[in-house]
């Protein structure tokens, strides 16, 4: 989208055959966002910012999305390391399976989670009979749903970083007498840090916008399971204007956090 300015001396003008479709793509991506902002009834905003339901949803969204990132880091980093560094049977199959939630419609992800962890699910039934535990309609269910859809972004990003970093340094560390765990902590992980940060941001963004799996698996109740996207969808049933200004709040929060991250982590880019 760098217009018609040639990217290198002597490269010539950018050909119309690339500029035109590129411009259409840019318009398609940007125009609806501009009209969304332009048609939002801003006068609703002060009222909404003061309402308990919005506070609860915003707080729950932040809380669950951050927990999701933490869970992705704790569980996803080892999985990415296994996929990148350890030979085991079925590895390529597992890598393919990890990517499936990327293409699964979120509502189907919710149904899949219900079939596993719902009250009468394959794991949920013994959990209920044995410990009296039920997941649906609870905040942990929201985090589980978010982790299910966000983890692939994190794992693929970290695995990519691990592969790019290569095993050279790991091997050197090993020859210097480091155990595999020490190598992981002191060498592999620091080298893959940019991938971890990028994966974390991706997972966080995916979690913040997650809606279909959450409402299907965890339900929709203010304070426990109603995140911002669920609240926006609920409002959409009654008042599109209110739903739009709520979207603006979510948009503003995500831009703020990304800007903060850019200051802290992504400045070299």
């Amino acid at each position, binding site marked *: 989208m760098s217009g018609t300015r040639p990217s290198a001396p002597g490269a010539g003008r950018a050909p119309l055959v690339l500029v035109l479709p590129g411009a259409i793509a840019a318009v398609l*991506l940007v125009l609806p*966002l501009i009209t969304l902002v332009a048609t939002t009834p801003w006068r609703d905003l002060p009222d909404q910012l003061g309402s308990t339901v919005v506070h609860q949803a915003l707080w729950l969204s932040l809380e669950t999305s951050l927990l999701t990132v933490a869970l992705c880091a704790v569980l996803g980093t080892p999985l990415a390391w296994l996929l990148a560094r350890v030979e085991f049977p079925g590895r390529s199959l597992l890598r393919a399976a990890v990517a499936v939630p990327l293409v699964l*419609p*979120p*509502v189907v992800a919710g149904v899949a989670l*219900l079939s596993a962890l*719902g*009250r*009468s699910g394959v794991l949920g039934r013994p959990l209920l009979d044995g410990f009296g535990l*039920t997941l*649906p*309609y609870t905040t942990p269910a929201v985090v589980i749903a978010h982790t299910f859809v966000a983890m692939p*972004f994190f794992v693929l*990003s970290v695995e*990519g*970083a691990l592969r*790019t*970093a290569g095993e050279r340094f790991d091997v050197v560390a090993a020859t210097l007498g480091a155990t595999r765990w020490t190598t992981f902590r002191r060498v592999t992980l*620091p080298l893959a*840090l*940019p*991938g971890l940060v*990028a*994966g974390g*941001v*991706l997972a966080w*963004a*995916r979690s*913040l*916008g*997650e*809606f*279909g799996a959450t*409402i299907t698996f*965890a*339900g*929709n*109740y*203010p304070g426990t*399971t*109603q995140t*911002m*996207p669920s609240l*926006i*969808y*609920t*409002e*959409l*049933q*009654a*008042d*599109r204007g209110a739903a739009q200004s709520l*979207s603006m709040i*979510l*948009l503003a929060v*995500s831009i703020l956090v*990304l800007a903060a991250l850019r200051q802290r982590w*992504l400045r*070299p*880019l």
Partner: protein
Amino acid sequence: MNPLPRLPRLSRVIGLLAAVTLVAPVAACGSDSDDSPSSDASSSGASSDGTTITVLAAASLTESFGELAKTFEGAHPGVTVKLAFDSSATLAQQAVEGAPADVLATADTRTMDDAKSAVTDAPEIFATNQLVMVTPADNPAGITSFDDIENGDVTYVACVETAPCGDIWATLAKKDDVTSQPASLEVDVKSVLAKVTSDEADAGFVYSTDAVAAGDDVKEFPVPGSDDEITSYPIAVLQQSDHSDLAREFVDLVTSKQGRSVLEKAGFGAP
């Protein structure tokens, strides 16, 4: 700490991120809100030279309007009735925005009022519906009456107040002095029914037509006071109709004795 080769990759990921952040919430909402009327043509062999009338109808009318459309096509050779089902609020909005359709039938008068500018004459009430309580067929919580939802162990779900079914639920819950809270507020009545039939809730509050449609999958219980909180279904011909005479005839069929018996079979009450 910053080996060169990794930078391009990271920036690519960040680019992807920007797209995900901005699009994901919107895309998620679009995925099951069905913004456009899914043209579920109950077309019984559409004749190529015949005319087609399009009926926008509330989702709860799926079974009964499907049957009435077939009756109508039988009586009018060469005419095809195309049915589009969605939530009433969505359909009313589409009607106002000039969707190419001939008839609008909604699940409450409020949404029909929203579409006032798009309908030709005063909408007619052709059916009523009321709230009932359903439990899964095996009734895991051993519910015997409406009062059992006050028992803390019972997990029940209802519609959110912005949906018509939730509006009625909220009114009745207040009237009946319900103090317990639902486990979840679903965005539409079909989601409530799904939670009950899939055994994820001990009870749910749905329309009597939903209980009829679910058949043996659910047990039905009355809700005290629901007779006073019935919802009315209005139907009207749309201004943008190219076949207003045929559209009028379809409305007449729905409001006829024959139409009423089809609707009653589906669990609707008489207006």
